Structures are given as structure tokens and as C-alpha cells.
């Protein structure tokens, strides 16, 4: 029932996972893409962490790689955490966290629609805002509308 600071959380995580899987950096945990589901279910399932509420999912195009950013919080302990996952630009596929947090459903679709990162295991991954046949992914830095 007590809030953990970021360092404590990072300590718990690094005790369990190897640094190439999860590494704390500048107030956030950087997770390797293939380990995301494993780490996320640990974060969600461990009683002293208990990250049961996914605030936000978004993606940033860093010209070369995408960074998917997850903001988590725990209603019980009221501590929060930022997860960052990198994925390469040429193969933008991520595991979906919908099985853990349903709240990711529409947000992952949004990222897919506007950023072009697809999520493996998402139940209904199709364009959310734009229509079928829209060319390109507008939030990528190399997007130009052509008008």
C-alpha cells in the first residue's frame, strides 16, 4: 500500500531482468521490444507494483526508429512509471498489450493509423481515424501531404 519511487521500481526490475531486456534511463524504463509482454505482465501482476491502469500509449518517430511510450500507474499504490520501447523503422511491429490492459485497444489502433506501427496480437487492428486507401502515415516525420 505504499508508493514506490522510480529508483525502487527500477531496482525491482533490474533485480529480475537482465539489463539488455530492461534498462532504466532518465526516469523511464527502456524495454526491448521482444520482452515487452513479459515485463508488462510482471509489472501488472506483481502485488507490490500492481500497475493496473494504463494511462496512455503513444509513439514518437525519432527518424530511424520509433519509440512507443507507455504511461502506467497503479491505483492502489499511486505510483507511476513510463515504459519506452524502441522498434526499428524498417520493421515497425510491436507486441500488443491489449491482453493486459484493454485500455490500449483504441490507442494502439490510433498509433497504427497515424504512425504506421502495427501491433501483433491486437484483436481488431485497422485504421481508426483515416479511411481505407489513405496514403502514408501522417505523424511520421517524413510524411508530406503533397498539397
Amino acid at each position: 500500500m505504499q508508493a514506490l519511487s522510480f529508483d525502487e521500481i527500477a531496482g525491482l526490475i533490474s533485480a529480475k531482468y537482465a539489463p539488455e531486456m530492461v534498462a532504466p534511463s532518465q526516469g523511464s524504463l527502456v524495454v526491448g521490444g521482444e520482452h515487452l509482454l513479459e515485463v508488462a505482465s510482471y509489472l501488472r501482476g506483481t502485488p507490490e507494483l500492481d500497475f493496473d491502469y494504463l494511462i496512455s500509449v503513444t509513439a514518437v518517430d525519432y527518424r530511424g526508429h520509433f519509440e512507443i511510450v507507455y504511461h502506467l500507474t497503479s491505483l492502489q499504490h499511486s505510483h507511476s512509471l513510463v515504459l519506452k520501447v524502441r522498434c526499428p523503422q524498417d520493421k515497425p511491429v510491436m507486441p500488443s498489450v491489449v491482453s493486459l490492459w484493454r485500455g490500449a485497444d483504441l490507442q494502439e489502433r490510433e498509433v497504427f493509423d497515424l504512425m504506421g506501427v502495427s501491433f501483433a496480437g491486437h484483436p481488431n487492428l485497422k485504421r481508426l481515424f483515416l479511411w481505407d486507401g489513405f496514403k502514408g502515415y501522417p505523424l511520421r516525420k517524413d510524411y508530406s501531404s503533397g498539397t
Partner: protein
Amino acid sequence: MALKTEPFVLNIGPLHPSTHGVFRLLATLDGEVVIDIEPIIGYLHRGIEKLAEEREYQKDIPLCDRLDYVAAMSHSMAYVMAVEKLLGISVPERAEYIRVIMVELQRIASHLLAVGSIANEIGTFFTPFMYMFRERERILDLFDMVCGQRLLYNYMRFGGVSHDLPEEFIPALAKFINQMPGYIDEYDQLLAENEILLVRTKGIGVLPPELAINCSVSGPTLRASGVARDIRRCDPYSIYDRFEFDIPTRTAGDCYDRYRQRIEEMRQSLRIIRQAVEQLPQGKVNSQVPIRVRPPQGDVFVHVEAPRGELGFYLVSDGSEKPYRFHIRAPSLINLTPLREMIIGWKLADAIVIFGSIDIIMGEIDR
């Protein structure tokens, strides 16, 4: 003998009297019973995130106003708070108080609209809606007095607000907060125990708390399900830790509770405004921030309690005068996640009421 029936698909929207804008609900009906729905959105996707990344920080404030056009103050406040956090600047005391007053007034205005539209969707011929609009107009008048606009204010600035309150504002506000509790009681009198309203909302569209948490639902919709999560209390921003107010919650999580929840929150907002007016200090309302700001590299996530739920801004700065990434965590969009579970199995008429009771704004969903 069971009657042989065939389900059929009804396309509700995008332009439908009760879709709150341009929302499309593809409902499969068996007679009157909704057996499947698929929400289709994007009819108001204006590309605000992309536009914001192409403009300077200052020019994004009007865009934020247009996100949720019935709660423009809350949205621009969240945005300027995010940029202030990036810049590492502080806000003068008086400006903080003014912001709180504005945002809480905005919450009342927005909840008035929400409650009015719930009543409208149950089928009252616009009457409660008109009554709610009567009071909403008074709030809009107050905003008009402060910043000359009725709907989209462009009032917040980095490091404060654009200008000080006019002289006549505080007396007008005092009059309003003295009268408003009476009006809220009037709505209670007219609506809360109306037999038809009760049978149309009680027990309808229950959102269990576990599902609500799992689906990241926030705001009054979450609190009506019994989860006391309010950013103003659990992660206090601005000066909310100086005020006394309750976080009302309900237990059942049905449409009736979502309606009552908003009524209660209006009362709490009035409490906050009253305290803020009493404590309102003198002083300047803006710290000198250049028009073209260049925040240092880094990212920031700021979330506030907007009328519809947890509104978050995730900004990434690359040191230039335009945001590198501008992401909005839109409460309305995420509150739609459990819509299918809530609606399925109810009648078509209930589906409309359930949808209305979540209280969404398309501008924020589609962005």
C-alpha cells in the same frame, strides 16, 4: 415456439441527433435488442497533432482550445502546464488562482451540457437542455467578460494568463456562485426523482469497476463506477492541494449514477471556486515569457482532470521552437473502449442513453 427472426444492421450516424457530433455506431439489432456494435470514428479527424508539430509552441494554444470545444479552458491549461514544465518556469500566484476559477467554471459548463444531453436522449423534448443552457449562458458570459470569446478562449499563456480579470468579473462571479446551488437543486427537483427517468437510467449500462480500470476509463464515468481516481487529488497539479473538496463517487456505475455524479461534481466545483475567490491574491498574472519559446530537449507528460476525464499531454522537445511530438491523451476516446460491453444486450433506446451518459466530444476523440 420461438419466432424466427433475422438480425439486421442499423447504421446510426455519422449525422444523427444524438451522436454528439459525427460518431458512427454500426449496430446489429435483433428486433430492438442490440446484439453487436462497432463504433466507427474519425469523421472529425482534423490532424491536430500533426498541425501542432508544424507550428510554434505559442500557436498551438488555439488548437488545444479546439480539441474539446465545450471545455476549452481545461485543455489549453493542460497544454500550457506541459510547456511550462518543459521550460521549467513558474506561474504567478494570482494566475494560478485565475486558472483554477476558469477551469472549474468550465467544468460546470461542460457538465451542464452533459446532463442536459442525457435528459435529451431519454426523450424530454429539449426542456432540461434549455434550462441547463440558461445557466451555461451565464458562465459563457463570465468568460466573455474575461477574454471576449464565448466558446474558444485562447486565454491561457505560458507562465500565466493573457490578461488580468476585469473589475466587474468578481462581483458577477460571486453572484453566479451564490445562485448556482439553487439552480442545481432545481434540476434535482425536476429530474432526479422523475419516475420515467429512473426506469430509463437505473441499472442500465452498468460499467463494473474492474472493467472500467482495465479499459483505462477516467473522469466522472470512472468515478460513477466507484473508483475514486481524480487527478486533482491523486496527483495534485496547479494549486489544487490548497482547496478543500470531496471526490464524490457512486457505486452502481449505471447511467443514473453517471448523471448524478456530474451533478455532484458541479457542487464540488462551486466549492472550489468559492474558496479560490476568497483566497485570490493580488499581483501580476503573467511572468515574462518570450513569445517564441525554445524548451530544452526532453519529454514531458502532464495530466489534468478535464471535465470528461484524465487529459494528458505528452510533449517531446528537440530544442527547436516547434514541438517535436505533440500527443494528446484524449479522455473521450479512451472512455469509449468499454462501449461494446456496456451496450450489448440492451435495447436500441438504451444504447443511445448509455452512449450519451459517457459524455464524449468528437473533437477530442478524433482530434
